């Protein structure tokens, strides 16, 4: 157990693997998450980036055991919240965690609120589940929460129904609901993808503000690199259920080490270069030279990629899995193929206590 709240990571995910039954082909299983390590520190925003199907939402939902079992199955791994493995908790015990220690907001504010109850009822439901207060006090707390997220005329609107709110307002309601019990960790699964760009900025700024005042950790799941650049402290890039790169945001954008990350960044059109064609991610990851650029390549440190041709892979180590997340430089992890070199040089699990504001850099001014 930690002595001061700031001295240990809030959440540690160790070697998580989650698989699903495959409805399209019952003879196979879908391995959605295949060995993920990450950690979130208090007051830190960890951005989990990747394309659809890479396993980011599944990772987040696993922390709260929100996945229905079956068809999901936790194959192995631990999720430590303040040192305690959440995956070992029973369903009844998880009820005390959900909403009070960890909260989650989702992508679709339109359908994520129950249409037949007022938003006041729904926020108060969350409050009454985790706090021993009277109903009247819960109303007060709800109104305060709504004020905190910037909903005007909270006393009136607490009796309104979700369909009477706009998309941006509904997302604010979701945030109010999530934060009403002051959780330590907020999981935000693509919270702004369904919103307008201007509303997007407002919501993200709101989240940053709330993080500052409440000392909360945020796991921000997104596929939008612009959002990552503006809001993240640490970035975890995922592909096919594994982490391919893990670093703080400035290092990542400055000098991406994994070819996939490089491909993602290169494919963003830039205002400065005039090009006839945009670079695709595919071009980058199919180029064997990109893989050679990693320091230590000759020694057997090869970036992991599922489509790497067999001759380019290093000789694996029998009895060990084919993939390992390896700390190439201090504070920078890259997913690599297992080789004897890596076997001989084990590295620690990703753990990066980095917050952009600690550097004195004002968020919003891109130093990229």
């Amino acid at each position: 157990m930690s002595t001061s709240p700031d001295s240990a990571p809030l959440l540690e995910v160790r070697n998580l693997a989650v698989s699903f039954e495959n409805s399209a082909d019952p003879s196979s299983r879908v391995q959605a998450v295949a060995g993920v390590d990450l950690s979130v520190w208090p007051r830190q925003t960890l951005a989990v980036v990747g394309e659809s199907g890479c396993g980011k939402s599944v990772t987040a939902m696993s922390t709260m055991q929100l996945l229905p079992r079956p068809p999901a199955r936790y194959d192995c791994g631990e999720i430590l919240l303040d040192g305690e493995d959440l995956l070992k908790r029973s369903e009844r015990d998880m009820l005390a965690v959900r909403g009070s220690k960890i909260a989650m907001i989702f992508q679709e504010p339109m359908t994520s609120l129950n249409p037949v109850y007022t938003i006041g009822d729904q926020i108060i439901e969350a409050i009454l589940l985790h706090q021993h207060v009277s109903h009247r006090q819960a109303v007060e707390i709800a109104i305060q929460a709504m004020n905190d997220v910037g909903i005007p005329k909270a006393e009136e609107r607490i009796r309104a129904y979700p369909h009477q709110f706009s998309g941006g307002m509904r997302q604010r309601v979701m945030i109010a609901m999530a934060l009403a019990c002051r959780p330590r960790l907020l999981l935000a699964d693509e919270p702004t993808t369904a919103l307008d760009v201007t509303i997007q900025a407002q919501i993200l700024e709101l989240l940053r503000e709330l993080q500052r005042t409440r000392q909360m950790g945020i796991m921000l799941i997104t596929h939008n690199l612009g959002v990552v650049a503006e809001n993240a402290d640490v970035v975890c890039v995922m592909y096919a259920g594994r982490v391919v790169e893990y670093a703080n945001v400035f290092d990542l954008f400055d000098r991406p080490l994994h070819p996939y990350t490089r491909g993602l960044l290169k494919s963003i059109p830039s205002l400065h270069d005039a090009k006839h064609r945009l670079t695709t991610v595919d071009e980058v990851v199919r180029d064997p030279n990109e893989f050679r650029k990693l320091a230590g390549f000759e020694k057997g440190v090869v970036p992991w990629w599922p489509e790497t041709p067999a001759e380019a892979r290093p000789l694996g180590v029998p009895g060990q899995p084919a993939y390992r997340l390896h700390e190439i430089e201090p504070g920078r992890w890259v997913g690599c193929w297992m080789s004897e070199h890596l076997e001989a040089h084990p590295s620690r699990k990703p753990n990066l206590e980095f917050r952009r504001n600690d550097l004195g850099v004002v968020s919003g001014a891109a130093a990229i």
Partner: protein
Amino acid sequence: MLAYVVRRLLLMIPTLLGITLLVFMLLALAPGGIGAGLTASSGQVDGSKLALQQAYLEDRYGLKDPVLVQYGRWLARIAPIKFGTPDQITLAGEHKSKPRAIDAPPLPEWFPLSDAAIAARDAATLKRGVVAAINETEREDAQRAYRRLETDYVSSRAAYRALTKKLGDELIEYAIAQQISGVRTSHGDCRFDVIATTPAKRDASNWAAIEALATQIDAAYIRALKSYQLIDVAFAAKPFREAGVAIVPGVISIGSPDLGVAFSKGRPSSVLIASALPVTILLNVIAFPIIYLIAVPSGVLAAARRGKWFDILSGGLFVALWSIPVVWSGVLAVGYLASNQYVGAFPVAGLHDSLADSWTFLPSFRDDGAFERGYLLDLFWHICLPVACLVYTGFAILAKQTRAAMLDNYSADYVRTARAKGVDRGTVAVHHVFRNSLLPVITVFVTVFPATLAGSIVIERIFSVPGMGSLLLEAITNRDRELVLANTFMVACVNLLALLLADILYAAADPRVSYE
């Protein structure tokens, strides 16, 4: 919300108009037209009396008029807002409308009115005497006097009509002989105006008959005219209670709908329906809670245990139940459970035992220790089988809809949010999923209610329960137009009101629905 209800009630009016028009047109489509049933039900064997009866019915119901005119007339009787002199209602509930004047005899070009007839038509002195006579008597005597006058009026009018028809038939034969075309209408009546344009051929074979009939008509006209004048005055003296409330006296009044007289039974339709409607409503009102109490929980349970044995079993059972036609289950119930050949545990017919009226309301023991069922228990015992045969059809639709709605809502996003908040499974199921599933369940009422109402027709026939269904069947068999129309109208009203209720409940349950 009130505005919404009022708007819906007002919208019911065109729908009711439409359905009554549809049924009226159907009845008009019948071979023989609307009048077919009327003549069939008269049951007279004697030829001349049959002619008389037919003439009376044709005259009273205006059966020779175009269908739309007849419909309009029926509508005017049904409508609560009435124009003209208001009807009067007898103690028995029968409506008496203002007596209609007697039309002049046909073909005045050939057979002008006699002097006596002209004198009768213009007689005004007669009226004063009658008024005086009627004002002096007690009210009950006035009613009896009215009835006597009415009988006289009806018979003399019918006789007059019958003679006119006979004249028409003779003239048709005359026209065929004289080769005058366009005299015969499709109904078989004579077009007097066409005849009037041709010169009278006194040497025709049936001229003697024609002339004799003309003289008789003249006499009958005088008689009818006199009785009309008497009854007209008698009516104006208001022997019976006036129907409705006068807004502008004598011009506009608001009153209850006049559903007509069911001539196959000789009683006002409203009386018959008043005794049949509560029975049907009782059957349905008892059936619905049972349907909901059994179907909704099994739908919820089946959704919660999807794929397990309860789900599969209940699904199969309900499909099988739904497929059993009500005619079969009713016959099996009567044959095996009710009749004495087999189990005989239930009564075979009716809603009450023949002695039920003499019993107490609640079960009791008689002096000699024997158990007496009591009125209430007897009613329930009789209603057991009919209700059982009525409810099982509704199970399937409702349970399936509940299950589908629950499954739909289980995978909804707000359920994920609720679980992320820390709500436990049970509360999620009841408070979130079920509450949202209520909406389709209420909507399904719109389908289940008419189906159950229709099922009760068959049930009433099989179990001889005197409800709206069996009333309709009798009316159809007897071709009793008034009763069919009245019955359809009431059933449509009940049905639409039930649907309105369902919509109001839905509006109360779903805040997204706005009624402003």
